């Protein structure tokens, strides 16, 4: 798994982060983008499997991807977000990592 490969962006000397920095470290979004190939049922199944979503929630995210072109499927710490992006890419979904800084 890439988790073992994943870099920790916090250096030892940065352990005592200020409050805003610490908040920013948790503010990473896993975003899935639409593609014309993968089946709706496949995308729903992947969301259920990867995130443990129930059927209605998985369908809701799938429809958001389909109709709006993107859906934020998870928010949290960078390292975990990276692991989710990697897993979604293993399933051939177009997943990207975004920081709340951008918005």
């Amino acid at each position: 798994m890439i988790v073992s490969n994943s870099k920790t962006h916090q250096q030892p000397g940065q352990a005592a982060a200020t409050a805003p920095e610490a908040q920013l470290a948790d503010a990473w979004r896993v975003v899935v983008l639409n593609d014309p190939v993968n089946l709706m049922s496949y995308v729903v199944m992947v969301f259920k499997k990867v995130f443990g979503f129930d059927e209605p929630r998985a369908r809701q995210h799938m429809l958001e991807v389909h109709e709006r072109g993107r859906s934020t499927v998870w928010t949290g710490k960078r390292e975990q977000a990276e692991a989710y992006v990697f897993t979604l890419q293993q399933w051939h979904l177009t997943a990207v990592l975004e920081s709340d800084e951008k918005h």
Partner: protein
Amino acid sequence: MKSIEVRLNLEVVAPLLDLIKAAADGLKEELAITAVVPDSDADFADGWRQELLQDQTGDIQVLLRVFGREFFANGIIALDASNSEAVLRACSAVRLRLKSGLLQRMEDEVLESGEVPVQKLTEDEHKAFACYVFLATLQELIIEHLDPSGRGV
């Protein structure tokens, strides 16, 4: 272990395997998707893509094994928990490869709607589209009968 056996028409499906194998060859060197790596570090990005490529290759090998000796003997393929996830991912990879290759002329909206003007396709496109649909059907069968999410419907 939950499993399904699917009897396929050998005459119809066997020619599609040539396309799947050709796509599989291309996917040995390239990822099916453009993987955006969430880090600008070159070594990290390279490791990320290599690991995805390794996983993709392994999945496609599983798919090709499903269409092995037994399939050519009696047209039957067997799917269960040991191969269903890899087959699902491999089908997705090959479909993406077909879309970016032989089916690149098709607009996304047309492909997504499923209303493809089959009569306007070239012979190669027609065969590629048949393969594309066949792999989607295989994915739907697995999702419906084996539920790899483990969460039921």
